[in-house]
């Protein structure tokens, strides 16, 4: 078997001088690979678009909220209400050392914020400084609430994007200016541009975030808080801590530790796991359909090559009669198949990349739909293998053609 310019020319000639046949053969591969790549790119883009909704939200968060008890316990009747308390923060920190951040949340719904003539409705939340580890803000201006704000009861706030654009229609850095919420003035210290759709107590867009100690005193909350948000230390699975957290809270607040209704526990881990599984499923489908189409294309190539070999019986017979060895015939048909597959495949990769680029430009929200370079490289490798596999059966058949057959065929 030789491989040089001459044999390359011979292969190119055979393909180029039978253009329609080559075109039809290549199209199967072209379409199959295009489907696979386009769906892969599109799927990744879709995933990125959905993931944007969860942007910045810690995936291992647990949120606690109190509710009516549903079981009688230690002389209390069922249906009793209890409240989470600030003390619970230290208690949980001591009893459950696997927790990393524990932070209280006080929610104050339906507030109206005013700056001069501009008014906007939003919601207020009082949080601790470690809230940043749970809902990461994307600060456009300024900073987030810190420990000193909490300790010194500073009347400061971080405002969401919608609050900012409504109250400061002229734009610019609002830090240092004051806005009025109810009857209290707060100094703006930051603007949060996070547009994540997953957040605690309404969207980050419409939030006016203040230190929780300020919320406690201004709104007469006493020791009561509405929610406790927690994250685990790295490597800790929050679902495994749930039972212990329940026991700690039940002992303090005197409800039955087996009373599931008394304390609401939300585990975002599970939510994200569902999402993750969904995308694994979608990905699996993409690969299944894409590879399926690609294989169908390869089988198409094999089929057409088979017909081609049959059609070329005379030609191959002539070649054999004038001195081509069986191996030379085999390698020629194989090489034709591989070359055809690769050319069709490269065109397909270019077409997919172009279309995905167009899609990206059309959607225009900074999300990448493009396939990775690695994907393109592995697609190319796959093509070589597919081309060889598709050409093998026809090539073996061509190899078995006897030179005598050239003369029988008129």
């Amino acid at each position, binding site marked *: 078997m*030789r491989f040089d*310019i*001459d044999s390359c*020319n*011979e292969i190119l*000639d*055979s393909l180029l*001088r*039978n253009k329609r046949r080559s075109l039809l053969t290549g199209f199967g591969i072209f379409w199959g690979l295009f489907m696979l790549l386009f769906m892969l790119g599109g799927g990744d883009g879709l995933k990125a678009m959905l993931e944007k909704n969860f942007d910045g939200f810690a995936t291992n968060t647990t949120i606690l909220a109190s509710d009516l008890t549903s079981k009688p316990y230690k002389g209390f009747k069922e249906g009793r209400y209890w409240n989470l308390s600030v003390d619970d923060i230290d208690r949980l920190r001591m009893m459950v050392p696997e927790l990393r951040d524990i932070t209280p949340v006080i929610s104050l719904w339906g507030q109206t914020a005013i700056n001069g003539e501009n008014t906007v409705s939003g919601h207020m939340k009082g949080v601790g400084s470690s809230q940043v580890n749970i809902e990461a803000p994307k600060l456009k201006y300024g900073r987030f609430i810190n420990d000193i704000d909490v300790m010194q009861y500073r009347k400061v706030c971080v405002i969401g994007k919608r609050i900012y654009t409504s109250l400061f229609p002229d734009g610019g850095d609002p830090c240092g200016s004051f806005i009025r919420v109810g009857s209290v003035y707060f100094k703006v210290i930051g603007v949060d541009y996070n547009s994540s759709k997953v957040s605690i107590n309404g969207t980050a867009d419409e939030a006016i975030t203040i230190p929780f100690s300020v919320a406690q005193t201004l709104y007469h909350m006493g020791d009561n808080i509405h929610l406790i948000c927690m994250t685990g230390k790295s490597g800790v699975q929050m679902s495994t801590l749930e039972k212990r957290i329940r026991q700690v809270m039940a002992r303090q607040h005197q409800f039955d530790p087996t009373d599931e209704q008394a304390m609401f526990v939300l585990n975002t881990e599970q939510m994200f796991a569902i999402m993750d599984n969904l995308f694994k499923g979608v990905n699996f489908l993409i690969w299944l359909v894409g590879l399926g189409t690609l294989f169908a294309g390869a089988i198409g190539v094999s089929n057409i090559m088979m017909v081609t070999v049959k059609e070329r019986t*005379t*030609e191959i*017979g*002539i*070649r*054999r*009669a*004038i*001195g*081509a*060895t*069986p*191996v*030379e015939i085999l390698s020629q048909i194989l090489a034709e198949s591989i070359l055809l597959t690769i050319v069709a495949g490269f065109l397909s990769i270019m077409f997919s990349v172009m279309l995905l680029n167009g899609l990206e430009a059309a959607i225009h929200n900074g999300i990448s739909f493009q396939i990775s370079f690695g994907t393109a490289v592995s697609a190319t490798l796959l093509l070589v293998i597919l081309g060889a596999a598709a050409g093998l059966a026809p090539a073996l058949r061509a190899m078995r053609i*006897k*030179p*005598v057959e*050239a*003369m029988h065929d*008129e």
Partner: protein
Amino acid sequence: MQIELHNVHKTYTGAQPLHVLKGIDLSIDKGEFVSIMGASGSGKSTLLNILGILDKYDEGEYLIDGKLIRDLSEAQAAEYRNRLIGFIFQSFNLISFKNAVENVELPLFYQGVPRRQRHEQAMAMLERVGLTDWAEHYPNEMSGGQKQRVAIARALVTYPKIILADEPTGALDSRTSAEVMELLAHINEKYGATLIIVTHESGVANYTNRIIHINDGVIGSIDDNREHKSSVFGSRTIMK
């Protein structure tokens, strides 16, 4: 003797085994111009296939230049065909998507001759068959006689010792047939290649110097035809 056959038998196996060659003894000298004549089914094509190492025989011996041609691998057979033998077919068997000069180049390609040299040799050979102007034309743009001349150029381009022609004029009219035969006779004379033609036309056979009649798998008679008087229509005419 360049070609020697001793008691060659060939049977086609199948549902009904067919004993085609029933002991052929034949010897052909270097540079001879020979025709094999016979009715269809007489075994003349089978004999040609065996002579051209395109087919295997079951029994006997076939020697070229004293070398036994037997039980060759496909690759060896291809090598022998490429180096020793040139073929001319009834239906020309040119490759349709290659032009004349590329068709002539093909045996040299399989010999591994570099491209430039291949092209030069092929062009020289086309010149000898008078087709220089048609070198870039494809087979479907040429007449039957021109196609057969391209095929002859292809058979000659490797300067084979033996040229085998299977009904070379079968698809041509009488005038073109005569032209082709003149060309073959000229080649035999000038280059000294052994030329074996299978035909059923007496006019064609009359161009050759020896006529081997094959009948039902055995050789019937061998006529000396150096006078070229075997045809009732006179020498150098072909009736169709």
